[in-house]
């Protein structure tokens, strides 16, 4: 079954969304590479949730308004989004850059949120353990470094992207730069407000994450003491792709849909 693709106008910003399933709303916030494809994880989750996958402003086919200049701007945008779609009791899931956005949303307002799942999130800094510099990585390197299982990387690299896909990738890269170049991948103000997050929270990390080392999981745990932390073995920066079944079951567990 194909998800429903829809353009939404949120306060004058047109964005693209994919949506499928029924039940508790689950809002998935993608990482720096966008969310143009409907992933196996979404398919699995849509058996139990109303899965909503928007493309952030500045990514994929969504508008790129000049006034969005930072991750906090995107977080405020998603508060508008939640309000306009009249969503409540939302299971919020964010990966990497999207995990950063999810945390910024949650510190601002959790009233519409039921739980928070952060998958290898960016957004905070561990002094002395810098994240890798994706802005220095070449195209092949970028794919290889994101996965522990190089067979996945091989498969991705063997597919030649279309012109449209290349344009979308470039747009995503431009937006990631705008949002995360300096300071590299974090907001110095986020950490001091993470205690505002009171909803059930979990942090999932790949033990072999080459972009944001798994040591960062401890930093999140330190600031959100009630969060559970899972470090998945033999997994890189994208557990939602590399270990999607594990991630799905962790989401089920946290939200009380344990199967």
């Amino acid at each position: 079954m194909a998800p429903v693709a829809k353009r939404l106008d949120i306060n004058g910003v047109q964005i693209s969304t994919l949506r499928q399933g029924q039940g508790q709303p689950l809002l998935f916030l993608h990482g720096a590479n966008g969310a143009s494809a409907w992933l196996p994880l979404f398919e699995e989750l849509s058996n139990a949730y109303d899965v909503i996958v928007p493309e952030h402003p500045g990514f994929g086919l969504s508008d790129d308004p000049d006034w969005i200049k930072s991750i906090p701007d995107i977080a405020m945008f998603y508060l508008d989004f939640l309000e306009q779609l009249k969503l409540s009791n939302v299971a919020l899931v964010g990966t990497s850059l999207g995990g950063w956005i999810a945390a910024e949303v949650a510190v601002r307002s959790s009233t519409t949120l039921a739980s928070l799942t952060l998958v290898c999130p960016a957004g905070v800094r561990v002094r002395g353990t810098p994240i890798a510099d994706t802005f220095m990585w070449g195209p092949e390197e970028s794919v290889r470094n994101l996965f522990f299982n190089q067979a996945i990387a091989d498969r991705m690299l063997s597919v030649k992207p279309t012109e449209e896909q290349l344009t979308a990738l470039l747009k995503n890269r431009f937006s990631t730069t705008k949002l995360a170049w300096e300071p590299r991948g974090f907001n110095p103000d986020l950490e001091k407000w993470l205690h505002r997050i009171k909803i059930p929270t979990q942090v999932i990390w790949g033990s072999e994450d080459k972009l944001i080392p798994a040591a960062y999981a401890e930093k999140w745990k330190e600031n959100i003491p009630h969060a559970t932390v899972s470090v998945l073995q033999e997994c890189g920066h994208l557990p939602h792709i590399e270990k999607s079944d594990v991630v799905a079951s962790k989401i089920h567990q946290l939200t009380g849909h344990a199967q």
Partner: protein
Amino acid sequence: MKFVLFHLMPYRDLNFDEAKKYRSVWTLMPNSAYNPDKGADEYEEYIDQLVSGERLGYDVIAVNEHHQTPYGLMPAPNLIASALIQRTKKVKIGVFGRALPLVNNPLNIAEEFAMLDNLSRGRLITGFVRGIGAEYHTAGVNPAFSHGRFYEAHDLIVQAWTRSGPFAYEGEHFNFRYVNTWPRPYQQPHPPIWVPSQGSSETIRWSADPARKYPFVVTFSTSDAVSNYLKMYRTEASRFGYEASSDQLGWAAPIYVAETDERAREEARIPLQRLFNNYLPMPWEMLLPPGYSSMASTIELAKVRTGIGVQEQTLEDLIEKGTVVVGSPKTVRDRIASMRDKTGLGNMICLHQFGTLSNELTRRSMEMFSAEVMPSLRAKTLASAAAE
């Protein structure tokens, strides 16, 4: 035609095999490879070379800014400009240029240039640039805001030079409650501003605007690109309703002169190949960080994947494409004259020392250029040029 003696001040004592271990000598090659004794000698010699430009009849002697690279040892070009002012009397002093978006307080640039203009009693020519891609990595400045910061810093600096202070500056990127710089520039309303660039249509249009008419300098490009960009400038000027003068059109290129073409090629070969194949190269990710060029131009550039330092080039490639000017006095004269006749070019920015070129060969080439190339080019004006 006017002649600018231009210097990058490269650090020559590099182990090039060692350098190959890094993605680029820019940003990533460890500075432990810098030997201060050798570096101090480089500065002394390079400043002497520039100072000799006055005796050799150059109109301008000029420096530029680069960061965290042996390609050029002038992260603070105004320091060199200040030294040059003290050792010369008449020659103009060019700083081509300061990278406006890379600083967080553009007023510092306004102040320093105003000081240099006073120290030299009006001999300063300033240059405004955006900096090279790698410098957005080293400065930590977000390339997504490069264009915006450039235009805004420019406006702020020009206002600081021309408006009576104190006034408030209210921008998107820069905000100052008090703008009231002392000293004011010596030249009125302000020192000339040149715009050296690899050429983007946006920059060219902005420079040619009648409100500015900033001289444009195409740097390190093939002769096709140079003539295209200079033509584009003239076209923009005529769209604005005026004819661009030769003073507004510049070309910066490595130039080497020797008695014969053969000898010139032999002597320039390794040093020039070092410049293009060892000092300049950097991967795409450093050359064009996202936002440094617009999305449209980045897509265009990605299609061809050419650009400075992307591919290895031989001396013959460089000569054939016209990126460098190498040969006997006659060859060099003819090359520059033909570019002048084709484009209306009025400012020749001469890079006589390049790559690992030795002091002795640099000085000989400069002397020969001054004695045997400059005079005839200077004599002719570009009467025929604009007719094209």
